């Protein structure tokens, strides 16, 4: 009886070892894609949907697209030996195509908060930017850090920043067409502060976690792209500093 019992436990142990071994063998190729995206793209063609969203994605007529996300994807493609096929379109058209696996990636200045997370897998944020209240000098910045009530804050007309400013603060919204010539305090993305010659206050209006969209469930491809992006936050910030213009 004890002998039989021992035989049983060894049998169990063998089974566990087998499971672990299978896991280790698969380790080099795990997780995998249900539809094999990464295998297809590697040394092949990566289909990228691009929708205009300056400075992340610019899609000019007749010339190849540019922008922070476009540049990052070009570098990613190089690491896996893929050629990029750019597919311009509206965000919703591209997402529909991505959902139906006609595209491999969509870039459109998306953020993690995007509603598209229901239909596409969003990558970890490769860069986080903020919309802040900025002032022309330190003294004004200090005052605005204390209290925004009644302050006239310039903001790009008809922009989401204007909406946020109106909804979330007591400041007086001053819509302008061009922030560069606005003068005075303004609500701006943090990467434009230097270009505009403004200093930031403690008041943050919004935070954007920038991400790209990949087909749902293509986990090997998702993980490959994320691994690439997570290592390159500084690179992304440098490209943004160069590409981001008021």
């Amino acid at each position, binding site marked *: 009886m004890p002998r039989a019992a021992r035989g049983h436990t060894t049998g169990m142990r063998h089974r566990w070892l087998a499971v672990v071994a299978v896991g280790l063998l*698969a380790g080099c190729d*795990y*997780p*995998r*894609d*249900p539809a*094999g995206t990464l295998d297809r793209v590697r040394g092949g063609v990566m289909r990228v949907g691009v929708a205009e969203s300056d400075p992340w994605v610019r899609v000019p007529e007749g010339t190849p697209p540019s922008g922070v996300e476009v540049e990052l994807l070009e570098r990613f493609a190089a690491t896996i030996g893929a050629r990029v096929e750019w597919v311009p379109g509206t965000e919703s058209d591209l997402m529909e195509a991505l959902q139906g696996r006609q595209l491999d990636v969509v870039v459109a200045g998306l953020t993690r908060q995007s509603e598209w997370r229901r239909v596409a*897998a969003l*990558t*970890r944020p490769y860069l986080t930017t903020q919309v802040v209240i900025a002032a022309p000098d330190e003294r004004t910045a200090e005052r605005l850090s204390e209290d925004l009530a009644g302050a006239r804050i310039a903001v790009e007309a008809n922009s989401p920043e204007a909406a946020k400013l109106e909804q979330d603060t007591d400041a007086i919204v001053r819509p302008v067409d061009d922030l560069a010539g606005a003068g005075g305090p303004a609500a701006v993305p943090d990467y434009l502060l230097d270009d505009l010659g403004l200093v930031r206050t403690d008041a943050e209006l919004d935070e954007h976690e920038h991400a790209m969209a*990949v*087909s*749902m*469930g*293509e*986990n*090997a491809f*998702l*993980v490959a792209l*994320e*691994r690439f992006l*997570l290592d390159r936050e500084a690179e992304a910030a440098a490209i943004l500093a160069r590409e981001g213009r008021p």
Partner: protein
Amino acid sequence: MRFPAGSELPPELVPVYRRAVRLEWISIAYLLSAIVALFFTLGSSQAMKGAWLEDVLSLAPPIAFLVAARVRHKRPDASFPYGYHRAVEVAYLIASLALLSMGGFLVVESTLKLLHGDHPPIGMVELFDWQVWLGWLMIAALLWSAIPAVILGRIKKQLAADLHDKVLHADAKMNRADWMTAGAALAGVVGIGFGLWWMDAAAAIVIGLDIARDGLTYTSAAVKDILDGRPRRDDESGVHPLVGEVHRTVAELDWVQESAIRMRELGHVLSVEVLAVPRDEADLLDRVEDATARISALDWKLQDVVVAVVRELEDAPADVMVRASGPTHSRSA
């Protein structure tokens, strides 16, 4: 006769009961840790979500047990002349409903996801500058949600039998559901890793069905208790053996011509009412006291025993009747 307040438990079971209370506190602390671990690794896995929800609902039985533990010992008073034993039954119903709703939810949602063909995405995460596939963290969290639950469930099952405590039994079952769900979610996550997107939802459906079945059994049992059903075993596997013993004891009383017996559960103790028609009116007081003592002596669970003498029994259902000629109750244990 002592007014039937009854100590809840005989002295030898008090340490067992204390152990159960301590175990339920440990369960709550453990569940909270598992809930936090799963929450931070949830991702988009359906089975993970099920495992997490399951852990959240698993808090219901131990909390119900501990809340009931505070009130069940109270002596009867003007507002609750039968005492507070049945606080345990309320807790039992809550614990059972938690199981049932949990299972149902999991089945419905996972079926929808499966039909919809959702491919769950699992990407990378950063933990203090360390990059790791979220799937590995999920697996670690699920193991934490499974292994201690197996152990807790086993201990509780034994304690539930000792204490005739149905909440504890439902809780043990809930722990079983916990580790099974975690195991299925584990299969689901590993499956996703191998590119088998459907495995996640499929695993969640199988587990959901199992949980819902348990939930249904216990909910119906709890409702029967509240409707004063005949006492059943703590694992609901049949009529409680004490029903037969009480019937036999009453049948052996030679001064009783015929009698009707009503038994019901008051939480984890049992209440007995005997309406007895005596052959003659001699020594009635002594005889009634003796009968009460004999029944009470059968088991500590028989705490609220009332024997009443009546001239005749009209319209009593044959099932509850006991005739002096022998044990004639038709449906015995």
